[in-house]
């Protein structure tokens, strides 16, 4: 079983979407947790959803990183509870220091909503065990600030430790400047912490989890989480 909690910030707008996807895929009910609460109920997965928390008025994710609930999210994450940050959730993870780097404005300076190809760089994380390393998947992005940036030393460390999970690529898995929709350093679309249990990603896997929506490649993020959580229990 998978006890998942989705944090709802004022301005979150993919909270219901990820709940719907999680419940459809795992079959277990998902708890919605209000940003003003002091603690997250015991969970096997905490999700920071996409949206515009606090209007993204200061800097994307900056205010959410300091909301009451985040103290407990940070504590639980450090104690080993897996955390998935999607889009605005990724920005919050960076702003709260759970993941390194920042997400800057897209190189085009425009909001971009479209399907992109991602090359799966590791299947050795809590969230990617159901993918194969090197596989190319199709998942949509929808953001204006997804241009991942970190200093060269941090990037080298992320690469060296296998913490780069997804890279923007073309349909054949070629990674180049042309295949990056937002100018991200080294085409980084998603990274984890050193233990592979905190994943931040700009693309929205919850938007392509069933055929009707135009694809199912996002589904395995959630299936991986379920399997990893179950494996940890047994």
């Amino acid at each position: 079983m998978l006890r998942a909690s989705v944090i709802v910030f004022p301005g979150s707008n993919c909270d219901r979407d990820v709940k719907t996807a999680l419940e459809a895929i795992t079959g277990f009910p998902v708890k919605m947790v209000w940003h003003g609460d002091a603690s997250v109920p015991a969970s096997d997965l905490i999700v920071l959803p996409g949206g515009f928390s606090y209007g993204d008025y200061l800097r994307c994710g900056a205010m959410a990183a300091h909301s009451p609930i985040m103290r407990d999210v940070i504590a639980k994450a450090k104690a080993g509870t897996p955390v998935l940050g999607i889009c605005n959730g990724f920005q919050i993870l960076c702003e709260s220091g759970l993941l390194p780097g920042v997400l800057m404005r897209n190189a085009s300076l425009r909001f971009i909503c479209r399907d992109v190809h991602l090359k799966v760089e590791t299947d050795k994380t809590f969230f990617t065990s159901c993918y194969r390393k090197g596989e190319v998947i199709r998942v949509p992005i929808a953001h204006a600030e997804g241009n991942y940036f970190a200093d060269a030393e941090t990037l080298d460390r992320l690469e060296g430790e296998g913490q780069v999970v997804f890279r923007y690529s073309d349909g054949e898995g070629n990674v180049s400047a042309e295949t990056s929709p937002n100018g991200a350093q080294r085409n980084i679309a998603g990274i984890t912490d050193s233990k592979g249990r905190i994943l931040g990603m700009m693309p929205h896997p919850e938007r392509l989890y069933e055929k009707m929506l135009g694809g199912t490649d996002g589904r395995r993020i959630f299936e991986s989480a379920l399997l990893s959580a179950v494996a940890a229990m047994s």
Partner: protein
Amino acid sequence: MQDTVTDTPTAKITPEIVAQHGLKPDEYERLLEILGREPQITELGIFSVMWSEHCSYKSSRVWLRTLPTTGAKVIQGPGENAGVVDLGDGDAAIFKMESHNHPSYIEPYQGAATGVGGIMRDVFTMGARPVANLNALRFGDPSHPKTRHLVSGVVSGIGGYGNCVGVPTVGGEVNFDAGYNGNILVNAMCVGLAKTDKIFYSAAKGVGLPVVYVGSKTGRDGIHGATMASAEFDDKSEEKRPTVQVGDPFTEKLLIEACLELMASDAIIAIQDMGAAGLTSSTSEMADKGGVGIELDLDHVPQREANMTAYEMMLSESQERMLMILKPGREAEAEAVFHKWGLDFAVIGVTTDTGRMVVKHKGVIEADLPVPVLANSAPVYERPWVPTVPPQPVLPQWVKAPNGNLDALKTMFGAPALCSRRWIYEQYDHMVMGDTIGRPGGDAGVVRIHGTQKGLAVTCDVTPRYVAADPEMGTKQAVVETWRNLTAVGADPIAITDNMNFGNPERPEIMGQFVGSVKGMAEACLALDYPVVSGNVSLYNETNGVGIPPTPAIGAVGLIPDVAHMADIRLKREGELLIVLGREQGWLGQSLYQQIICEKLEGAPPPVDLNEEIKAGRLVRALIREGKVSAVHDISDGGLLVAVAEMALASGEKGSGLGVELFAYEGKLPVHAIWFGEDQGRYVLAVDPERAEEVVERARLLALPARIVGRTGGDAITLKGEEPLTLKELAAINEAWLPTYMAGEV
């Protein structure tokens, strides 16, 4: 304007002040007569916005009454914040389209953003969660120095607002035409979903009830926005920038959640958003519909700025505000909900049995007006009009043939009128809410009704060059095009909303365009059982005395009973046959072919045969539901060759999809008229070869022509006697224009 007037609230009302308020001398005389005294300045302000064209529909009302607005599925027609239709199983769709033309020209980002915000409030104020946004945009000629700036600002404003609120923008249309150089059109449409037993209305029924203000604080922005929207533009219009409101989508998102949360209880008696004319129109309309009076104490209005006067507060168009009438004793519960979402909540008045609107500020009565008079006394004009005389049809033989049909296709696909709109719709989040199953780029956007197998199909359309030539036929065409677009995805068309954008109605030829347009709409809606349930009229779209092309944008909603049986335009399998359903006459008058290839628009627009539309629509929906067609596309702008090419391009990224071998035409019409004629009532169907005969036969039984025109396969569009046109090349041409233009390189 507000400075001169409000700094001297006791000023004597001079003819200049009356004129500044947009009231004509005879209208002011009427006001004096109604009141039996001279108005106070706040009262003059209140009347001026209520009597503005924007709020009162004084020029259009007599004609709008002639539109069909009822039907078996209509729960609420025009007259409320938005129209409501029944989707079965207790589901209702609530929708409307509204213009934000003048603000968007002056300040494109905020003008467009607040247009989106305003239309969403119209929808959620009735109890619906907004689930789909659309927009119809008309810009000036690409070579006009302001066009690029306006496109950029409007598109990012629409995206900036809708993306943040988290409602997918799933469709729309864009035109470029020199006729909009000085007056662009930004029409925003929103569709929401509610339960039929949980629809909220605006009638403040009951005396002694708390009048509650929620949402953002009131500032000085947008004062007299409604009056501005009712005036012509001139070279000094830029100076009106302060009357453009500033949007805050974050607050709107919170307001949606808070309103829907409170609506789940039974604490609300009536609710209305504060749109055009803000507190003034919301209070007077709610009181009038409820048959009560209302007493406001402006001291309690949450204010963003210090020292605001009653005049300013009553006329402010600050965004993201709502007015509610609560059941007595439920204030604390309601306040808790709004405070949870971090929003202002204030009891600012009470309903009374006096039938008067009394506005107090700092202990002084600033206005005391009879509600029914305020709400219903606006002048109603029967403006003189002269009908537009449509040009004679041009025969296809009179229109010169191109050097090559595929060359002409290339030219047309690379032109602003037909190039890909990807640069625009990729700036809109079209997938948030997780139910988008028909993305932009097809005939209609489709969102699944959350948690069900039903789909809501939405579209908006009008072809202004047809309307300009023949307002009546052109508007009929706009209605049937929405009907076909809904049909092409497999939806049953239900109802429409109209956004009538015209020039100065005081000019008989403009009024004639409006009248013709309403007549055409009425005829089409009646025949198709496709009522008008909401709408908006935007007149005075003129700059320096030149009106825009008449642009009655039609927004439409349809229902897909089971999303397992829907269609899209993408070709899917090699070796399928393409069938043109519908009558082919090679109508090139007012076609894009004329406009782009001949560089000369002339003749009558294509005629609409409503009877044939109905038959073709029924057949297409049946074929989709029986799974007998694998792709469907309505034939509209550009004609058959364009429609086929669009289906091929949609079948794979960057031209990687399926090509089409087109068969030689052996009929009597000129070949280019067959490929580029814009005859109405037609669809392209992709069909398994084994089923083609059956489809043609089914059409024949309905006396509808159906002709096999090509076969899918290969990587190019091929036409006998012409060099094949690869999809890669065509895709590159099609995708190039807009990004290149916006980068400043055209």
